[in-house]
Each structure stands twice: as C-alpha cells, then as structure tokens.
C-alpha cells in the first residue's frame, strides 16, 4: 500500500477539525441528557452543535508553547520589578488605591471566571465550544494568578492589599462586583456565556481594562502594565469566543432571540453598574489622568458598542434600553460614587481624599454640564471642613439596591437633585432598587434577588461581627466591630490619604532614593 498517497497534506481548518470535533461522541450507555444535564433548562434550543465555527484554532501543544513564552517574559519583568524597588517609580502612592480596588474587586473574579468557564467547558454538548471555554478557563486562572503575583509586591509595602479574598466576601462595596459574578455563575451555561463571554468580555471589557492599564502606564506602574499587556492576546481570544457564542445561539433557532435579548439587556445594565467603580477611579483616583469616564464611555460604548449592535441587528438584536439612561448617567455617576466613598472613607479598605483645585478644574473642563453645578460645591465644602480639622465621615449606613448592591446614591434621570428609588413587591415584602434597570431585573427574577446578601442589612441583623464581639458590652461600637469583621488594619487601610501610613512611607522611601542623606 502506498502510504504517501493516502497521507495528503491537510489544511489548517481541516486539521484542527480532526484534532477537536471528532473527539466527542453520542453516548449510548448513558443518555446524553444525563451526561449533559444543564444543556436544556434555560430554554435555549440548539439543533446542530456541528454548525459551531471555531473562533480560533489552537491545539493544546500550541497553547502550551505560546502561553509559556508569555509567562517567562512576564515573570522576568516581575522579578526585576521586585528587585529594583519598582514600586517607587509610580507617580504617587495615592495611585495605589486604584490598584487596591482592582486586587480586591477584580482579581478574585478572574478566579470565578476560571471556574465558570470550566463548568461551561464541561456542560455544553458540543465539542468546539467546550474546548474554547476550557481554554478560557485556563486563561482566567492565569489572570487571577498573574494579578496576585504582580500585586504581591505592593502588598509588602502598602496597606489595603493584605486580605483581598476575605474582604471581597464581606466588605459592603465589594459585594457589587462579587454579586455580579455570583449572579452569572449561578445561572445556566448559556446565560453565563451571554453574561461573561459576551456582555462582559466583549461589550464592556474595554471599559474595564483599558482604563486600568492605561492608568497604570500613565502612573508608572510597571507591575500592572505587565500583566495587563500580557493578558491582551488572551482577551482577543475571549472576545471572539463571546461573539461566536451569541451568533451561534441566534442562528440555531428563532426562539432563542427573546431569551438572548433579555440576557443582553440584563447583563449590560449589571455590568454598567459595576463600572461605576471604574468611572470613579478614572476621574478621581489617578494622580495622572488618562481620560474622563465620560470620554471612555463615548469611545468604548457609544462608538464601538454602537457598531457592534448595528452588526447584530441582522439577527434582530436591539441595543439595550438602559443605554438611554447611561447617556444621562455618564455626566454624574463618577462624582456621585467618589462623594459616597469620601463620606464612607472610614469603612473602605482604600484611602480617599479631596480633589485639588487643579483636579477640580480638570473635572469642570471634562464635565462642563454638571461638575461645577452639582459637585464642585460639595467637594469644596468638604475640603474646607477637612482643612479646619473636621474631615467628614458618615457614620450612618446607606440603603443598598437589592440588585446591583450599590448604595442608593444615584439620581433620577430627569432630575440630578433627586435620589432615585424604585420599589417592587414580592410575596408581601417590599424591595428597593436604584434604577429602572435594576427594578426591571428584580421583577423578572425576584426569587433570585430576594436572596442577595446585602452587607448593610446583614450588619443590622448582627451577622457582621467577629465571634469575640460582645454587643452587651456598654463600650460596644458596632461600626468598629464591623471593620474588625472585615479584617481592616484600622487607621491604616481606611481613612483619608492625607496623613496615612502609605503617604508617609512612600514619601520617606522616595526621599531616600532621590536625595543624598
């Protein structure tokens, strides 16, 4: 037999198909429904998994090779960063508070993404999407770990990084990103793909990573720049997976459209609410600003996202309704958020501060319609008070939105002086949400959102104290006890940046490096 003749050269696509698709089979000793028990309950109809177009064709050996090369480079940079006191190259230690928010609020969610994609990579009956999901699962544990490793060096020198997983589970504002991912992971595999694979990784990712990574580059943070840059080629794969996934669902059955549209609407709003923290970071926390939140929103959502939804229109997908409100909100949310954290700076694991005159002028220029009118007076007043020794800290507890879990601080779309409240009823009980978007989500799945572990409610119910706390003691200070439960280093993690240990240490260490002693 002439082997040469039968062994014709295979094309890349054909070869990849052999390397993947052919691996799966229709089970007969166990029913397919038992092997893939979560494939149908969400109501998405898939008729032919073979129609899935592989968005990238990466065999395992190629994956190992490329990724190992990236890891070698990344850790070489991180080692050099640690050896050379790279942390002293940042513009100012104020900057690090943005990165504390990142390590506590984002990195642990990379980990949840890893687990969620492992589940998706087990649960879809099609081999193509499963392999793509598993590779993303592997990438996501990479992101969690490279972030922890990169920021580990800051933890050695600065406060607020030291117990990120413990804090994510407990601290009031961290329940915003945590509940977002809990929400996605507790849904089925298809909703997970729309929530994380599409909405988060495709539509919103540029609004999360570009601000943090360019913020890092502008502020001399080589550690963050390094892991961010190294993750870019992974992200490109994730985006194509998210897009392929949504197209595949829509092409498989017309009945899938309303379900997919509902999920897109929900996850766009959920994601945008979480991004409030990013907006605040961009406008208030970077010593050297990159662009305003409003500008970022206009470029990355209104322009890029607009083009995406035009493209999806042929499947019948419409731009989510909530975007109308976002056009109003983009002028406000970052200021409202920073004002909130400024007041609750005693209960945050990062430092807050008053913007300087120069910074306020920058904000006026970026927000000509709103900053001077609504927000400058407030920040100016607080600063004057702080200069007189009356730094304002609120000791009351805010009410939280039942869905996004952000304190009720956002204003009515048509009146920026009125706080927006919405109310729903479920089984005779009243539940409050921060916006039409969140109310809509609540009303659609009340049985899910009544379960929310709202940090403020939990404090009132006495569930946020350490076992050694004694409420019967006359000296019992509930707020202090809550901060112990959060495992804050009191006076170091929290309060104003002015006078903080971070500020003192950074200035001393930089002084050692730049001056002769």
């Amino acid at each position: 037999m002439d082997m040469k003749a039968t062994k014709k050269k295979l094309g890349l696509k054909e070869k990849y198909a052999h390397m993947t698709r052919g691996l799966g089979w229709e089970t007969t000793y166990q029913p397919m429904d038992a092997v893939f028990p979560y494939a149908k309950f969400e109501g998405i109809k898939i008729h032919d998994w073979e129609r899935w177009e592989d968005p990238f064709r990466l065999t395992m050996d190629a994956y190992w090779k490329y990724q190992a090369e990236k890891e070698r480079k990344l850790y070489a940079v991180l080692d050099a960063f640690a050896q050379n006191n790279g942390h002293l190259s940042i513009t100012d230690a104020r900057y690090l508070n943005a990165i504390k928010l990142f390590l506590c609020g984002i990195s642990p969610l990379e980990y949840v993404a890893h687990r969620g994609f492992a589940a998706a990579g087990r649960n879809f009956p099609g081999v193509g999407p499963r392999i793509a999901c598993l590779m993303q699962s592997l990438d996501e544990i990479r992101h969690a770990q490279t972030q922890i490793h990169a920021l580990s060096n800051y933890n050695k020198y600065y406060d607020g990084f030291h117990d990120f997983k413990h804090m994510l589970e407990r601290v009031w504002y961290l329940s915003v990103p945590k509940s977002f991912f809990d929400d996605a992971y507790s849904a089925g595999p298809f909703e997970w793909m729309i929530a994380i694979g599409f909405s988060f990784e495709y539509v919103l990712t540029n609004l999360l990573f570009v601000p943090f990574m360019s913020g890092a580059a502008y502020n001399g943070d080589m550690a963050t720049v390094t892991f961010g840059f190294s993750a870019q080629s992974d992200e490109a794969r994730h985006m194509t997976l998210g897009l392929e996934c949504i197209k595949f669902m829509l092409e498989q059955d017309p009945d899938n459209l309303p379900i997919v549209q509902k999920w897109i609407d929900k996850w766009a709003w959920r994601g945008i609410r979480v991004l409030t923290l990013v907006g605040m970071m961009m406008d208030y926390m970077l010593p050297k600003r990159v662009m305003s939140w409003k500008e970022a929103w206009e470029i990355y959502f209104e322009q890029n996202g607009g083009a995406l939804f035009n493209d999806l229109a042929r499947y019948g997908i419409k731009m989510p309704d909530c975007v109308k409100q976002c056009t109003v909100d983009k002028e406000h949310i970052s200021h409202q958020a920073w004002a909130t954290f400024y007041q609750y700076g005693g209960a945050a694991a990062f430092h807050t501060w008053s913007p300087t005159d120069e910074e306020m002028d920058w904000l006026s220029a970026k927000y000509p319609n709103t900053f001077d009118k609504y927000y400058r007076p407030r920040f100016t007043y607080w600063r004057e008070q702080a200069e007189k020794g009356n730094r304002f800290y609120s000791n009351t507890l805010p009410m939280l939105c039942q869905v996004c879990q952000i304190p009720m601080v956002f204003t009515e779309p048509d009146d920026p002086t009125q706080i927006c409240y919405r109310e729903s009823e479920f089984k005779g009980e009243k539940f409050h949400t921060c916006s039409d978007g969140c109310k809509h989500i609540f009303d659609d799945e009340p049985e899910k959102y009544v379960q929310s572990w709202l940090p403020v409610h939990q404090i009132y119910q006495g569930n946020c104290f350490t076992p050694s706390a004694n409420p019967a003691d006359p000296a019992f200070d509930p707020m202090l006890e809550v901060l112990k439960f959060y495992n804050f280093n009191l006076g170091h993690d929290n309060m104003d940046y002015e006078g903080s240990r971070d500020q003192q240490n950074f200035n001393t260490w930089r002084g050692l490096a730049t001056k002769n002693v």
Partner: protein
Amino acid sequence: MQIDLRTVAIKPVRQTFDNIARRFGDKPASRYQEGTYDVQQTDIFHYRPMWEPEFELFDERRTAIRMKDWYALKDPRQFYYGAYTIARSRQQDAAEANFDMIEERGLADLLPAELRQTALDLLVPLRHAEWGGNMNNSFIAAYGYGTAITQPCLYHAMDHLGVAQYLTRVGLELQGPKALDDAKASWMNAPLWQPLRRYIENTLVVRDWFETFVAQNLVLEGLVYPLIFDRLDGEFSAKGGTPISMMTRFMGEWSVETAKWIDAQIKVAAAESPDNKALLNKWLAQYRGAALEAIAPLAERAFGADAEATLTDLTNEFNSRCAKQGLSV
C-alpha cells in the same frame, strides 16, 4: 533625572498576604502558595445556583469525602499556571522534535505492517477515552472544592486534550484521516472498545467529584496508561516500532509525573479519617473491577496469550501503589 531606586534598602511592612501568613507565618511565600491557597471563595454567596439549588456555588458537600482543610490536598509539583505551562511547553518541544523527525525521514512508512495495525487499532481509538478524561477532570475543576485540587484538575483535563491530540496525530501520521474515521467507528461499535466506552460513560454521570477523581484518575489511568504506554510501548520498541514509541513518549512521561500528584491526593484524603478511607476503599474496589473488565479486550488484542499474565502483573503493581497510599487492596 534617572533615579536609581535599587540603592534603597527598605524593610517591607509585611511579607505576604494575610491568608498565607495565617497558614505559614509572615514570611516570604512562593508563587504557588499565593496563587493557590484560599483563592476560591468559601463564605457568603449571594444566590443559590439555578442548576443545583440544594448547594451553594462552591460547596464542600458536593462530595462525600470530608476534609478539615481542603488545602491539605496540595500539588507536589507546585503547579500554578506559569509553572504548568512552562513544564508542558518543554515536553511539547521534545514531542514536536520527534514528530518532525518521523515526518522528515518518513519513518512511519518503514513500520512493520503488523505493528502499524496494532497502533491503529489500539492507540487511535483511545483518543476518545482521553476526551472522556478531559470531561471528567473539567467536571472536577468546575465543581470540586478548594483551588489546591481544582486547579491541577483543570491542568489534567487540558493534558488529556493534549494527549487526545497527540493520538490523533499518530493516526494521521500512520494512515491519514481514514484512521480517525475507522477509530471512531471502532470506538462506537467494535466489541474491542465497548466495555471501556461503557466504563467512561458511566463515570460521566457520577455526581460526587471525588468519586470521579478515583474512577478516572486513580483507577482508569492507573491501569490504562501502564498497559498502553508502558507494556505495549515496550512491545513496539522491541519489535521495530520505535517511531510509535517516539510519538507517544509524552504520554509515558506524563503518566509517571501525574501519578505522583494523584497518589498525594489519595494519601492525604485517606489519612484524614477512617470514613474517608472506607469510602475510598469502596470506590477503589468498585472501579478496579469494572476497569479491569473494560481493558481486558485491549490486553487481549495487544498481548494475545500473554494478556492474562500481563493484567495480573499490572493489577499487582497497581494494588501495591494503592497500598502505599493507605488503601486496602
């Protein structure tokens, strides 16, 4: 002005994260430690999973095995993502060099016909079994408890995909795409493969992830890999089939490395409590019997008259391996 920051000696405020310090004291920690311990959330979940409302998102009750500290199940290889990919990329470099050499020199064409047929019959359909190994380990990676064990299970799942793809290349090398079609048909229908396919399909519906770990990683891999990538491989080498051995070297090395990790998990879980040990013994007995039945036809095809002796030998080795981990055999 260029500042030389290296000249400054600064005393760190702390050496590592609190969760690591609580376990090991405040001293410099390894990347494996910081990237693994306590990374999975354990407390306070907002919503019950819609797909399994009786449990929390991450929940230790998804297995009947009980551990005081799930991070006792650590990986002796200390694989975090970077260490894992770098280790595998070295191995794939070696594998690639072997495939290149076989292709360049046309070595596959020189194989004795009988050995070629054995490889086509036994190695190529095994790619589907490897895919089952991927599914079982991604199941554990998703639903297991504690990063110490879920993390290496994802690596293990991806390794199985890698092995399935190397076996695919063996088929393509020996016969082209037809080899894959024949292998699939054989996997689905040939009596040779039905017992193994049934074993694997039965493991795919197991809901206790530690049971999956025993059925797949300890028992099935503990018997199939020595049979195929050690004993049969020895036959290939001895009878002029070195090119086949070259194409499967990755699997031989890989199974030795991963067995050490698997043993460490079993040993620690068994030592934790008599209840754990009893459960592991029960699973071991149940799956060893089923797995030996499942691979009997493969041994028969590979070793003919020597099949029984080979299997007895393998079983003895496997039993003594399990005994070393504290199981009764």
